[in-house]
């Protein structure tokens, strides 16, 4: 290709990318930011200022919800990692070749049905008249129906379920690339199981761990259905606040401020996570 042709090819490939990112990501986010610093001072009269943010910090219900969402999301991320890591290790290193593909596929199945169906399944299982409650009564462990829904533990169970796959997939991918002889060498040098895990396997799996944690954390903090359906009307999830401001109260300015705050907050958490682990966004998330 000569120079002019190359340039044309580049422009033709760059144009869709540029339009996509500019029109659907960059400009809309700038728009939300501008909206968030607008204050309504009268009928159709607006002024720029930080009023929406000040309102957020003055109202404990708002920032308590954000804090709660944050703490729960971090907790869900940790639980997902602890539950998922052994499973990923089993699939990548212990299961034999054919079982491996099968187990991996099984892991993906819940991914293909919507949040709604998954939460719905948990409701059928856990509600007062549900399967678990009936079963416990049947075997005589409890006297009357038990309501398992509408508490934090159930929300965690449902959220972990929803995001588990996004932890397991990157973990299996990284562990799969690990040479078994590294583990053998660790044992030959006299390392105990714990030492091998701590000094060899975990450091090797770090990009996968971080990638999984970032995606899981973002998905959890941004989730809407699971906390509402399993946590009930008082689930106090921050996305619910954003929805309420936007759709129910039609207060777009303060809804936009909430959105910006959620985005800033999740970005800072991810940035700290990357810093602490010495990884970068493109070396982790994009790899999987």
């Amino acid at each position: 290709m000569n120079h002019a042709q190359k340039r044309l090819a580049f422009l033709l490939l760059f144009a869709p990318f540029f339009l996509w990112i500019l029109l659907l990501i960059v400009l809309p986010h700038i728009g939300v930011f501008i909206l968030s610093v607008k204050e309504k001072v009268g009928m159709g009269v607006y002024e720029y200022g930080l009023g929406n943010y000040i309102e957020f910090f003055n109202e404990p219900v708002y920032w308590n919800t954000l804090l709660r969402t944050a703490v729960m999301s971090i907790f869900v991320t940790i639980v997902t990692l602890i539950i998922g890591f052994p499973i990923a290790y089993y699939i990548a290193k212990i299961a034999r070749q054919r079982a491996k593909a099968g187990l991996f596929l099984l892991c993906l199945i819940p991914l293909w049905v919507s949040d709604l169906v998954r939460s719905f399944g948990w409701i059928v299982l856990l509600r007062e008249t549900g399967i678990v409650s009936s079963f416990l009564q049947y075997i005589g462990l409890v006297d009357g129906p038990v309501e398992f829904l509408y508490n934090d533990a159930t929300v965690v169970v449902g959220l972990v379920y929803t995001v588990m796959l996004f932890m397991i997939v990157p973990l299996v991918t990284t562990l799969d690339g690990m040479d078994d002889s590294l583990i053998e060498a660790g044992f030959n040098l006299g390392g105990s199981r714990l030492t091998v895990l701590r000094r060899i396997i975990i450091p090797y799996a770090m990009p996968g761990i971080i990638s999984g944690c970032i995606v899981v954390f973002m998905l959890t903090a941004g989730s809407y259905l699971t906390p509402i359906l399993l946590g009930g009307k008082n689930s106090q999830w921050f996305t619910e606040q954003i929805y309420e401001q936007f759709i129910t109260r039609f207060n777009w300015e303060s809804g936009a401020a909430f959105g910006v705050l959620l985005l800033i907050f999740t970005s800072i958490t991810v940035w700290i996570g990357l810093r602490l682990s010495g990884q970068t966004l493109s070396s982790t998330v994009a790899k999987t």
Partner: protein
Amino acid sequence: MSSNTNTISNPAINPKPAAFNQVRFLRNCFTGYVVLFFIYLAAPLIAAGAFAFNDSMFPALPWQGFTLDWFFSDTEPKLGMFHDRRLLSGLSISFWVAIIVAVMSIIVGTCNAFLFERMDFPFKSFCYIMMVIPLVIPGVILGISILVFASDIANGMEDNWGIDIESLRPGLLLVILGQFSFITTITTLVIAARLKKFDIQLEEAALNLGASRARILRTVTLPFLKPALIGAGVVGFLISFENFNTTLMLVGSDAPLTITMYDRMAKVGSTPVLNAVSFFLMIGSGLLALLSVVVQRDKN
């Protein structure tokens, strides 16, 4: 999973009797854990599916006997899903939205894959990060930002020129754009991963044999990418179909299935017809996922 002794392949573990028993015990614990995990994965899906066949007004025990009414019955109060007009319209809206989103995101994703795998340009790594970012923005935020941006444009048009563009108000166009904005990242990553494996010498050989660039693309490169294109399309279709967060903020009067189901759940409470839809969706997406696996395996 039953014969655990065969899976011990690690020669570093000394087969001393006591240690061996301990190893076997640990292995069994591990296998048990994995089995429990898969029960956890399957339980809610089985529960959601099973009650579609219960002859009762509520998706709850006791079991009242097997029925297919929740799929095929055409009379109230047990209106089956195939006679429920609103559910069917949600299903068809979701289907068309998912098709359009999948096609759009495959096209842009393919361009992106070539851009990042074949081209060198200034700020490439910055652009790459921008390409990945939509994946980690919460769906609700993507939704509100596109909602705000579209309304800004629509209001600007109306105030300055008196033109009212209805399609910039919440509705299917915005739903499609909102889903497209992050699904494109996923299709790009899938297609780029396949393009990375392509041996560029094949193209050079074809070039030496006198083929034109367009012809090479059509006869060599795109056929090689085909499994990834189909795979990306299936993934895009399924993610669009099941999307809720972004759609919720952008939806107008024509509601896709997830929104219709959610409304039904919130207003009427859950009835077994929702179990029937869930069962239908599980079978449908399972078959699609299987299709994409088969297609990808054949070509490898």
